[in-house]
């Protein structure tokens, strides 16, 4: 049984203009996206900035109005009416650990905010829960009375995680959770998140532009371009057998640390780039948008034009 099912999701932002300020066009930030996430897995959503991945995440979270489509969480349709309901079963971790924590609030108030909204706890119970949560994310209980600016970026992100898991959600949406952090801290935080996933039996929707991170974290990956999927598959499929030219290019661009392969890599990239330029119109329609996804295997789908 799937945990999250997104069907034909569209999020359009109107462009207004003209004398009466009517809607004259729309930015199609997300334009017909389908995917499913199984419980316990980490699903990666990859794309360059502007590809609609964050918008998709926020739409699932209910932070954006969605134009069309359905989002099911378990059996429940989330977007009754137009506004997506906020479920405590879904939580989010934000990209920027600086702005996602209210600078005027102490840590205890930040972490206890969801508890206060959903659970009626006494002061002591609340304190205990916050303490537990802090310990779970590797921070000391003394942190409780401090303000966010007294922490480092990595620590802040841990606070953000503590807040997100406070309600024991099933699904956590991570919007570029480490991209604002130093590379040295990134791995640390990622590992910690993986541990947490096992411990709490969490499902992650992992949004990132960084394929190497995604490769490390995710079970399955969806690749977005201009608001549409170009390819979806298991991590292995995507990295070892990319079908779409866009995916190929992304994969090729992953830096390789081994200097021995440098020349080889450069050549390979050149090739891919050439192919990309030459065959662009084989993979995208005249508007530069991806085609419908076609299944190749049970798990692997690619956006290719109808051939023949």
């Amino acid at each position: 049984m799937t945990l999250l099912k997104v069907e034909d999701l569209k999020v359009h932002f109107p462009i207004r203009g003209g004398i009466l300020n009517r809607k004259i066009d729309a930015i199609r930030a997300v334009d017909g996206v389908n995917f499913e996430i199984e419980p316990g897995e980490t699903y990666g959503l990859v794309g360059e900035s502007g590809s609609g991945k964050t918008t998709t995440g926020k739409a699932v979270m209910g932070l954006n109005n969605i134009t069309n489509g359905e989002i099911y969480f378990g059996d429940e349709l989330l977007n009754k009416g137009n506004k997506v309901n906020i479920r405590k079963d879904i939580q989010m971790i934000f990209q920027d650990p600086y702005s996602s924590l209210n600078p005027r609030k102490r840590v205890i108030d930040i972490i206890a905010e969801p508890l206060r909204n959903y659970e009626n706890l006494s002061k002591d119970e609340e304190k205990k829960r916050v303490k537990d949560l802090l310990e779970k994310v590797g921070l000391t209980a003394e942190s409780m009375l401090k303000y966010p600016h007294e922490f480092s970026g990595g620590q802040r992100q841990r606070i953000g995680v503590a807040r997100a898991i406070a309600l024991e959600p099933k699904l956590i949406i991570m919007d570029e959770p480490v991209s604002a952090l130093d590379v040295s801290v990134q791995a640390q935080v990622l590992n910690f998140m993986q541990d947490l996933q096992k411990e709490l039996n969490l499902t992650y929707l992992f949004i990132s532009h960084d394929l190497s991170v995604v490769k490390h974290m995710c079970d399955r990956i969806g690749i977005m371009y201009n608001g549409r999927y170009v390819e979806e598959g298991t991590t292995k499929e995507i990295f070892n057998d990319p079908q779409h030219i866009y995916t190929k290019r992304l994969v090729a661009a992953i830096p390789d640390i081994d200097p021995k392969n440098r020349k080889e890599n450069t050549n390979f990239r050149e090739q891919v780039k050439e192919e990309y330029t030459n065959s662009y119109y084989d993979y995208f329609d005249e508007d530069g948008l991806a085609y419908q996804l076609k299944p190749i295997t049970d798990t692997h789908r690619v956006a290719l034009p109808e051939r023949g």
Partner: protein
Amino acid sequence: MWKFIVRRLLITSPQIIFLSLLVFVLASFMPGDALTGAIGPDVKAERLAELREELGFNDPWYIQYKDWVAGILQGSLGESFQYKMDVEDLIWQRVINTFWLSLVSVIFIYAIGLPLGILSGRYNDTLLDQLITGYTYIGFATPIFIFGLVALWIFGYILGWFPTGGSVDPGVESGSIEYILSKLQHLLLPGLSIALIGTVSTVQYLRSEIIDTKQKDFILTARAKGASERRVYNRHIFRNSILPIAAFFGYEIINLINGTIFIEQIFSYPGMGQLFLDSIVIRDYTVVTALVLLTGIGAIVGALLSDIILSLVDPRIRIK
């Protein structure tokens, strides 16, 4: 650009309608009417009652409003009961005075504000700058009516340098040089009073703007390239700082009008502000309504003007 203007105009028309409604409703709540002033033993109450009926003073406000709108559509703002003349003519007589007063004030505002602002910004933290900043400190804190009153007292009464009331000496041939000089003489003190207080924000703005710009990279580059200090100031800094000031002018209109109400009262200068206060007292509704409306429209047009200038100056603001 024209789309932008047309759209702004479309947005402002409901504002004007609301404004006229508001004024009308308020006016209908004011105690007394234009005939109250006629009370006396020589005038029979019956005659007043008759006139009230004839002139429609007894109609509910929406009927009066309807008539008034109908009048406007035919190009008439109505007739002033007190002055027995068309409101537009009456207001025109006074607006022209207020216009001159405002013009002189604006000229002074910029004539005083620009040099002071530039000096203060260019030589910041010198004694000169401190003098100027000191002036802006005081100027900001001084209500215009206190300043006007004291100015009238010192320069009008004690020193006798300026006339203490009116807009022109009587008997001077209209259109002659003397006439213009006399007008100017009557305008100087009230105009200066408005300007000395009103210019303060310009000085402060210009000063901080210049100090800011001074440290911007393109100025440093210009200097590095060997441009003379004068050229740097004239071509780069000044031009960069002056445009927003020009643009803010439109927003200033409403402040200017508020200022003239006080100043005209203090200097017995027959302008719109005085006409307004008088008309309130004698309940000359048509005039009150027309004046408030006109002022409102002035403010709206001013804001529009500023927006246009701003969008010309700064493309970031321009809208599709």
